[in-house]
């Protein structure tokens, strides 16, 4: 009973330390519990949500001319899949959409008809107009629920898509929960009526759909290869796949990564908890040495006295674990909401009480083991030693930094002496700060990467010109490029292809092609190894592909294009961050050797600094007439009959050029004696797109989520650092109360002593911050490379600033926490 009273006395005496341990244990259990539940359950949650939609496992869009009915036979004969459905679809990658505020967005879309939707999934409507209302809507459209959840659309809103410059206004009839086709990266699945589907099929890429449920041993890549072997055609390059597996990876992986980071942070809190416990036990034993001696003299065994400390930490750790578990339960709905928002669907994360209790129990057990090992040191103090206040207060060691050799400030000298004296404590706090700093640096690097869309884009292994001009067929890109270069706003132009995909056999899946005549002119494609491709038979591959498939510089790979198959030498490895992570890099010659019938149709325009993109677009329209896309959208207007006729004729020509692949149009119109003539050569531009718009669509929501997560993580880690250092500082004041009083009597002011206490922890803070910074940079490097397949270089100034701020923050925390020294009075020396 006396032992338990000693525990309770210790708890009451050091409320602040006890509260810190409760807080850290609570956070550890909360983070670890939540992370475990999320990591292990997200897959199940996704599968459950997917199952609820009734969506088939695979919906493959074959380009209209590349689908063969035998593919269905392969499914039946080789995989025993007999429930396949054939249908028609439309694909548009990318497509402009009018934003609610009037701006433009680029989305990747796959359109299917209402009839096809009902055949391929359950059409699980979450929110929508009534059937009566829908029958009155001329052009209803059903969008994935993510549009309502994340973009704020509501049923009844107008949703206008722009195809070839022409606007197609739809009215949102409702939102449904899709199985697949729920991410912009793999194209969002939108549903229109059969009538509108037919209308759109005239202006969008038509596809044949083969939808089916897979079996356990079904492999989509194997299936596509079998289709390819059977038909002798390049199937993989011309098939878009929506499937459960890819959807799962797209929706869940990112969340799992961040939950992994949360788990890592929980290890920091765990390390901090253990460190604080051991530190506190050490201090308590030192403080209560004489009491321990008395208890031992009374016949208590050292094991029994050690137990008093274990009771104490059993109480604090258990309190923290209970609070952490409660917090996990309370936070669960919020977590469900966050996960749902990120996945773009309604999800319900079920609590796993067994796992939560197991996590809480493990943490308590672990902390107790660490506490026990420290508390067991009591047996080193038999009564006589304990009465003499143990060996701790007796110093016989070497005098480090003797004061007679002081140069400079005495406070600094005394602080450094204290640093060496408390080396064990400093190593412990150093480890905590090291872990915390590495997390901070990693967090800041991630934040910096997502800070703005362009910053993210610049690391992604693709060019980011301000404008991409898509030319009409027949326009000479090189001549037009030269003409554009004459404009003062234009800094540089590069001619490129609107490329088709190719398949590198060693990789297995289709790769997007990045092709330039001379890669040395590019500004955002960096090599991690080798050199750029320079000749027809040379290829650059992505870093991810290199690591994943073991392809090195100097290896030969077989590349399949449009009916061609060619061996190429890998000359360079390029980090990149496309959706597939397996882009390939080819010279124009190389690309044309694989896709012989293609022609360069894109001019990438780099503008001078300070040039406004919209102003430049307006200038282009002024110089070259509106683009075919713009003209096709415009309504013919004019003040005179001739103007009206010319404008009307231009509009018709634009439609022919833009939508039907016609290259030249001449017209002559006679009105009485007047002959009005014209020709299509005035049109050169099919469309102008900006990479910015597409990035904004795909990256902005993700960047926002990541930034919010990272800011939370940084604040949280900062709090942990603050808790550890302030507790250490407090306990240093408590432990050295007498010495501090003596020094005050000599004339040392509170500020002098606060400075000493803060500076005494500074060397370990600096060293551990430096080591943590290096570790953080390494983690950042390894994280992006292993998880995403590309390199994100942490900004050196940002990293240095983080390290400096961490040190300053740590110093400020220890300095102000040491303010407790103000309460130390010299008069205490009389009363002792």
């Amino acid at each position, binding site marked *: 009973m006396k032992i338990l009273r000693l525990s309770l006395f210790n708890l009451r005496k050091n409320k602040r330390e006890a509260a810190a341990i409760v807080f850290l244990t609570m956070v550890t259990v909360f983070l670890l519990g939540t992370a475990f539940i999320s990591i292990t359950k997200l897959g199940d949650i996704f599968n459950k949500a997917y199952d609820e939609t009734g969506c088939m496992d695979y919906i493959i869009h074959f380009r209209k001319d590349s689908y063969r009915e035998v593919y269905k036979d392969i499914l039946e004969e080789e995989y025993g899949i007999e429930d396949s459905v054939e249908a028609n679809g439309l694909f548009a990658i990318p497509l402009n959409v009018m934003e609610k505020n009037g701006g433009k967005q680029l989305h990747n879309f796959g359109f299917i008809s209402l009839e096809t939707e009902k055949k391929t999934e359950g059409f699980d409507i979450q929110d929508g107009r009534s059937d009566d209302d829908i029958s009155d809507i001329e052009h209803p459209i059903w969008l994935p629920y993510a549009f309502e959840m994340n973009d704020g659309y509501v049923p009844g809103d107008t949703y206008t898509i722009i195809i070839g410059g022409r606007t197609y206004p739809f009215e949102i009839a409702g939102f449904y929960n899709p199985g697949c086709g729920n991410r912009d990266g793999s194209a969002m699945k939108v549903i229109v009526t059969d009538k509108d589907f037919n209308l759109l099929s005239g202006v969008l890429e038509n596809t044949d759909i083969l939808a089916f449920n897979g079996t356990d041993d079904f492999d989509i890549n194997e299936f596509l290869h079998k289709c390819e072997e059977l038909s002798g055609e390049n199937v993989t390059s011309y098939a878009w796949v929506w499937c459960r597996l890819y959807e799962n990876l797209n929706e869940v992986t990112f969340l799992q990564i961040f939950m992994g980071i949360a788990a890592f942070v929980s290890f920091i809190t765990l390390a901090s908890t253990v460190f604080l416990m051991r530190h506190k036990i050490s201090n308590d034993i030192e403080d209560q040495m004489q009491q321990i001696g008395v208890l031992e003299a009374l016949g208590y065994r050292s094991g029994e006295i050690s137990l008093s400390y274990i009771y104490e930490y059993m109480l604090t750790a258990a309190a923290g674990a209970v609070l952490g578990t409660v917090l996990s339960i309370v936070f669960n709905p919020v977590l469900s909401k966050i996960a749902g928002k990120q996945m773009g669907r309604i999800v319900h994360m079920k609590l796993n009480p067994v796992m939560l209790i197991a996590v809480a129990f493990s943490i308590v057990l672990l902390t107790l083991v660490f506490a026990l090992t420290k508390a067991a040191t009591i047996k080193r103090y038999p009564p006589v030693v304990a009465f003499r206040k143990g060996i701790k*207060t*007796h*110093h*016989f060691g070497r*005098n480090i930094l*003797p*004061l*007679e*050799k*002081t*140069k400079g400030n*005495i406070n600094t*000298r*005394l602080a450094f*002496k*204290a640093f060496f*004296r408390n080396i064990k404590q400093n190593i412990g706090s150093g480890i905590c700060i090291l872990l915390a700093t590495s997390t901070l640096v990693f967090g800041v690097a991630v934040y910096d990467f997502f800070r703005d869309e362009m910053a993210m884009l610049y690391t992604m292994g693709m060019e980011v010109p301000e404008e991409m001009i898509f030319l009409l067929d027949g326009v000479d890109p090189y001549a037009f490029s030269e003409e554009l270069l004459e404009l003062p706003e234009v800094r540089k132009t590069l001619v490129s292809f609107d490329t088709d995909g190719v398949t590198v056999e060693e990789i297995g899946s289709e790769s997007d092609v990045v092709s330039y005549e001379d890669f040395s002119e590019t500004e955002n494609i960096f090599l991690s190894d080798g050199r750029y491709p320079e000749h027809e038979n040379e290829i650059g591959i992505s870093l991810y592909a290199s690591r994943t498939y073991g392809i090195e510089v100097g290896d030969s790979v077989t590349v399949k294009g449009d009916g061609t198959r060619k061996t190429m030498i890998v000359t360079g490895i390029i980090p990149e961050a496309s959706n597939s992570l397996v882009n390939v890099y080819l010279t124009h010659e190389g690309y044309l050797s694989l896709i012989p019938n293609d022609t360069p149709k894109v001019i990438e325009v780099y503008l001078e600094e300070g040039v406004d993109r919209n102003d430049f677009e307006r200038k282009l329209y002024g110089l070259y007439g509106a683009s075919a896309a713009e003209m096709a959208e415009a309504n013919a207007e004019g003040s005179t009959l001739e103007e009206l006729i010319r404008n009307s004729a231009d509009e018709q020509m634009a439609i022919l050029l833009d939508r039907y692949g016609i290259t030249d149009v001449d017209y002559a119109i006679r009105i009485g004696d007047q002959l009005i003539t014209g020709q299509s050569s005035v049109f050169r531009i099919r469309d102008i797109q900006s990479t910015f718009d597409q990035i904004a669509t795909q990256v902005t929501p993700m960047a926002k989520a990541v930034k919010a997560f990272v800011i939370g993580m940084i604040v949280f880690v900062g709090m942990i650092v603050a808790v550890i250092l302030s507790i250490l500082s407090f306990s240093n004041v408590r432990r050295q109360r*007498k*010495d501090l*009083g*003596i*020094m*005050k*009597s*000599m*004339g*040392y*002011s*509170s*500020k*002098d002593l606060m400075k000493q206490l803060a500076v005494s922890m500074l060397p370990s803070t600096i060293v551990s911050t430096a080591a943590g910074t290096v570790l953080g940079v390494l983690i950042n490097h390894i994280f992006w490379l292993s998880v995403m397949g590309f390199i994100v270089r942490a900004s050196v100034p940002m990293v240095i600033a983080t390290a400096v701020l961490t040190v300053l923050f740590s110093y400020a925390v220890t300095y102000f926490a040491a303010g407790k020294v*103000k309460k130390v*009075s*010299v*008069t205490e*020396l*009389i009363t*002792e």
Partner: protein
Amino acid sequence: MGSILKTDKLCKSFSNGGVQQHVIKNLDLEIMEGDFTVIMGASGSGKSTLLYALSGMDKPTMGSVTFDGEEISGKSNDQLALFRRGNCGFVFQSVYLLENQTVLDNVMTGALIVSKNSPELVNKAKELLKKAGINEKLWNKYPSQLSGGEAQRVGIVRAVINEPKILFADEPTGQLNSASGQEVLNIFTEVHKNGQSIVMVTHDLKTALRGTRVIFFRDGAVVGQYRMPNYGTDDLTVRRAGLQRFLDEMGW
């Protein structure tokens, strides 16, 4: 010989369970420069409280303390710390040496807060230690390796290294055996001979004999005082008898 320390209606009270306890009551006292003032009184009479109020270690509840013409009672804690640096030295009843520092470092910790380090300062510290009977072998020892007397002598050296205008001592021999106590008192006598002003609290007759002025304190007020010549300049028996008589009169 002018006044170095003066109190004007000095009051100090403590709250004890809601009840105010007046420890020092309206005290007007003057300490003269070069005096070895001994404050005596029964336990609980307020001697130590007076010592700490005089030295600026504790703030009075009312009234003022003027040190060398400068009022110190209104100063903040940090201002008082700065004031103590050059002006005051302290020797406590308990051996309050910094346990983690060697003998020489303990002395240097006191010295370096006032002066910049120099070979002269280090030599001065070593000389003072030698004079206090702390030989070279002990300079790098830690307090726990010293006897009580040795530790207290180091404490005195630390207190006088900055040549303070006044040296305060609170029962400096209270925890020492007779022989050690005498050694410590000899040092006090020695520094006083060199012109050091000293204010010492004690309840020991032998210790009080070292003073030149004995103030008797009772219930927070000075009830009597007794003057003596410098120690060693008169007959010790006569000195003892005189002081004993005074103390008897005071009801000690």
